[in-house]
């Protein structure tokens, strides 16, 4: 063996050793995130990204995260998710309902990659679903809205006619009705998750039609700005606290806290204990937070709202407790009966008292 071959073989051995070392514990777990809006939307995507940063904070160098913003729902999502899987992601969070079929399709092609789809209902061996019980927060919003409206007209900016959105409308309506039997809901379908100009237009249309409370199920803070401009209209933060619009128009909010779940799931991938699961948590476990109720809300209403929050968190009260009829008058839940998760996940009808039709 001459000197040159000696050097080469030593180098090769070192390389091999490094590679082996890297494979055992040096390689970081790569977590990917697909977002429906920009991370600066101040709402839905902002909170998912905050949770991503929490994952980085928790695991430091042991994790590497990548994300892609403003991925359209539908065919293009499949391309984006595939791209992420090809780039070596170990776990991919797809964070909007419309990514459901693309996620399932990509997951079939990458059996070794773990997928986590938010707010959907299709699972596979390597696809978990997770969502939060936003309707619990909607019940509290409905209570405050029903108590505070003076015109008895509440406007609701809805995004797409999917069960999650319909559930929110029903829950808010039931609880507004409970405190104010005269209350009416106007629902506007914006057919977008994120389009500040359109969301502002929708809020203005509702305000011009006499609604003095605006609930939103879209992701930007534009409706808050429109309500502020109009004055004397109250709103609620959606997905994120939107505290910059407190104390008026934003009087409270629903905050999505995904961080504990994301940390948990990435940890499971690291430990090799990841399994396909279905998670649906609410106020109790902390996945749904209720933002500070401001002083614009009368003290007794605030107290009632907090009591409602407590009883939902402890499990004493379910926001969908009978008697509840469907819009057509047929019985859905009998006296004292609570809705099953299956019913809630597939909800495609309005409850009695709501006017208008759900587009399909």
């Amino acid at each position: 063996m001459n000197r040159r071959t000696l050097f080469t073989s030593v180098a090769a051995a070192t390389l091999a050793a490094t590679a082996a070392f890297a494979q055992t514990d040096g390689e970081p777990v790569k977590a990917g995130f697909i977002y429906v809006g920009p991370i600066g939307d101040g709402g839905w995507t902002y909170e998912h990204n905050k949770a991503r940063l929490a994952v980085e904070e928790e695991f430091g160098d042991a994790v590497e995260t990548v994300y892609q913003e403003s991925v359209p729902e539908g065919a293009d999502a499949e391309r984006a998710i595939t791209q992420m899987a090809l780039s070596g992601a170990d776990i991919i969070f797809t964070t909007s309902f419309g990514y459901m079929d693309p996620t399932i399709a990509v997951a079939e092609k990458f059996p070794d990659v773990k997928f986590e789809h938010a707010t959907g209902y299709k699972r596979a061996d390597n696809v978990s679903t997770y969502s939060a019980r936003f309707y619990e927060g909607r019940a509290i919003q409905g209570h405050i809205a029903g108590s505070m409206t003076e015109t008895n007209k509440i406007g609701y900016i809805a995004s797409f006619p999917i069960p999650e959105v319909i559930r929110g409308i029903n829950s808010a309506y039931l609880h507004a009705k409970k405190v104010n039997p005269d209350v009416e809901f106007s629902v506007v379908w914006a057919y977008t998750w994120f389009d500040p100009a359109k969301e502002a237009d929708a809020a203005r249309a509702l305000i011009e039609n006499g609604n003095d409370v605006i609930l939103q199920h879209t992701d930007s803070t534009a409706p808050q700005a429109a309500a502020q401009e109009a004055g004397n209209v109250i709103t609620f933060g959606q997905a994120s606290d939107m505290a910059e619009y407190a104390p008026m128009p934003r009087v409270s909010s629903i905050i999505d806290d995904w961080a504990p779940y994301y940390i948990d799931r990435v940890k499971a991938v690291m430990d090799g204990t990841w399994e396909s699961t279905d998670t649906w948590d609410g106020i109790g476990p902390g996945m749904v937070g209720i933002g500070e109720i401001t002083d614009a809300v009368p003290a007794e209403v605030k107290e009632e709202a907090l009591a409602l929050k407590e009883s939902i968190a402890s499990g004493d009260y379910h926001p969908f407790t009978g008697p509840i009829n469907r819009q057509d008058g047929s019985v859905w839940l009998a006296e004292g009966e609570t809705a099953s998760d299956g019913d809630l996940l597939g909800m495609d009808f309005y409850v009695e008292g709501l006017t208008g039709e759900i587009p399909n």
Partner: protein
Amino acid sequence: MDLGSINPILLVASIMVSATPILLAAIGEMVVEKSGVLNLGVEGMMITGAVVGFAVAVNTGSPVLGFAAAALASAVLSLSFGVLTQVFLSNQVATGLGLTLVGLGLSALIGKPYEGMKSPTLPKLDIPLLGDLPVLGRMLFSHDIMVYLSLALVAAVWAFLKFTRAGLILRAVGESHDAAHALGYKVVRIRLMAIFFGGACAGLGGAYLSLVRVPQWTEGMTAGAGWIALAIVVFASWRAGRVLIGAYLFGGVTVLQLNLQAAGARVPVELLSTSPYLITILVLVLISARGIHGAPACLGRPFHASS
């Protein structure tokens, strides 16, 4: 259904406000295309205008300065497109798309500190006499200055292209750059000026979004308005008057369907939302069937004096 709760006065007023950003962007893009350049970067220039206008208005407290800065910033940005495509003869489609990506990224970067902030907004004009008219006053004559400026701009562009010598030269460059060059006109310089003007208009449109229509800064807030402006230019078959109709139609349908829904009317929402696009496709089919499309003959074609 009760349509009584829709106030026609407020409805027309909101339509005018919601059409203004796309009208500004579209009229600028029309001039660019009339000179024979296809700039697909409208979305990027609009969002740059939105963020720069917002930032300047917040820092100076003057929305007018915000609009001026927005126009300047987008115009300067559009010049990068101009230099690349006119001097270095890069592909216009690819460069325009690049401009959109740059604009979206740059605006997100500049806008970070401005999220959730409030800006001073334009005051509504108080026009004596006209503003006091019973119905029309509130409907048409109590808007902010930019609404009227956008309408004046449409009229000015129309008159410029139709009646002035400079307008004729601009059209000549767009129809046949070789002939215009042979006559001694500076094709590249004229096109750069058109691109600059188009950028400034898109910037104004963007600033109108962030300062008046929404009013706030949110990342990605144009949400496709630039693409709609591009579609309107085609829809209008490159005529100023029809750009106005197109912009008000797009703005109008959006606001109208939201109002109908708010009033509880049973409207086919999906159909109404897509109707402007359907109409654009229909117009495209019609003009191509007729064979006269009105597109400048040299649209999108590169020009070099040596060829």
